[in-house]
């Protein structure tokens, strides 16, 4: 135990550098994923056929192929077509596209779960489709979206470990490198476990707080 604490002083700085990259990649990719999730999820409702087909194609392609291959393509293959983005940008876009596809299914499911009566009432009040979505449906759907989004966020945090494939030193890769040069497996992997948990737990708490906030004003029969 004492050795673990003593060695941590030596190992922590490099691990924390990796942790910072992991956190940054997670937050940026989460943002990109959110945008794509809503864009693709909402596009499945009442948009022109072309847009709906594009959205479906996007979702099926990015859910149906593995994230490693997607990152590989963006990083190693696109340069041959003239598009060469720096590693972190590539990683964020790749993760964002992949998790956005999963997120869009969450959005679509939550919108479908809003009672049909809400749509009918809005129609009776002569509201436009966009207005109905924006003011009636989506606010009610958000509460149902939050737990699956929380899930995806933690999954995204762990998926950033794949970024080592495209030359990004995230927390997991920093640990592997330290292990290669120091051989202290127990200390390194214990520290990494703790750091991942320290990053994941606040995210879970944040999502739970958001759930509580969106429960205000909802009728008592629908609260859980």
């Amino acid at each position, binding site marked *: 135990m004492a050795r673990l604490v003593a060695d941590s002083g030596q190992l922590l700085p490099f691990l924390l550098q990796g942790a910072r990259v992991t956190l940054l990649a997670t937050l940026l990719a989460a943002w990109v994923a959110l945008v794509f999730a809503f864009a693709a999820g909402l596009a499945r409702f009442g948009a*022109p056929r072309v847009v709906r087909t594009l959205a479906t194609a996007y979702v099926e392609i990015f859910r149906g192929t593995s994230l490693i291959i997607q990152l590989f393509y963006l990083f190693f293959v696109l340069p041959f077509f003239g598009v*060469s983005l720096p590693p972190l940008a590539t990683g964020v876009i790749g993760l964002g596209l992949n998790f956005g596809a999963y997120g869009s299914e969450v959005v679509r499911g939550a919108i479908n779960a809003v009672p049909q009566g809400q749509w009918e009432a809005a129609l009776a009040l002569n509201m436009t489709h966009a207005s109905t979505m924006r003011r009636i449906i989506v606010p009610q759907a958000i509460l149902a979206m939050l737990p699956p989004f929380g899930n995806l966020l933690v999954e995204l945090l762990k998926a950033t470990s794949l970024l080592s494939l495209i030359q990004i030193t995230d927390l997991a890769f920093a640990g592997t490198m330290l292990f*290669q040069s120091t051989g202290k497996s127990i200390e390194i992997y214990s520290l990494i476990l703790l750091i991942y948990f320290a990053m994941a737990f606040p995210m879970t708490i944040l999502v739970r707080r958001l759930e509580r906030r969106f429960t205000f004003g909802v009728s008592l029969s629908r609260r859980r």
Partner: protein
Amino acid sequence: MASMHRRTLLKGAFSTGMGLAITAAASHESDAETNWQRIRRTKQIRVGSANQVPYTFLDSRGTLVGQGIDVLNAALAPYGTFKLVPAVGEFGSMIPGLLANRFEVIDTGIFIRPARCQQILFGNPDSLSHDAFVVKRGNPLNVHSYADVAKNPKVRIAINRGGVEEGYAKSAGIPESQWVILPTDQDLIAAVQSGRADVAADTETILIPLLKKAGGTGIELAQPFTVPLGTNGKPAIDYGAMAFRKQDADFKKAYDVGLGKLVASAQLKSINAKWGLPADLTPDASTPTAETICMG
């Protein structure tokens, strides 16, 4: 209905615009200048490394150090001093990264193999290696070659997944029941130390620093050792070198000239010795050039 179309169109236009902006910003590479010309102008080289001791690896402060770094700096010294920007990744991403111009040179002790020569250009070798065995101190089972392992069915030999050692073991007739397959080089040493294997087989340049780190705890290199034969019937010597893109022949030529001076002046020998590579693993005037090795 119309406003929903408008919103979707706006969303689409925005994302297309962003995409175009990113693409425009990204493809700023001027095709008129070669990598070597840009390197001489900016005095910066992006170096691809797989974090492999003793070739190139990150120290505890995150700086790229190693035999490969010293050799690259010394060979390019006639052209000036360069800032080496590390691009560290897994070994499997080295060649794809070089081809995609993610970095200008692979400096990680990559061995010259004819199959690789078809995709990339190698500089002349800056280190040699060959297979070696790590055994418990005193070599109790008296193994000095792959044939010795095949003769004794009780010997368990630890090798890396997908390495050349698998081929050597098969040719020597060692049955797979005697193989202990492990993912990394450290695992091989740990297996012999803990008794999960009797012999660890790997390339000598990697075993030497691992043994040093293990601090002489009851394990040693098996001496003497019969180097296994390669596909051409001669002892299999591995040549470690820098790798460049085929379009960067000018960079390779400049590097080869500098390296030749290091070989002639014995400076290469002292660099290699500093990182634990003995003299017999250092190229000299009789070492074949990269082109010869590429032809097999």
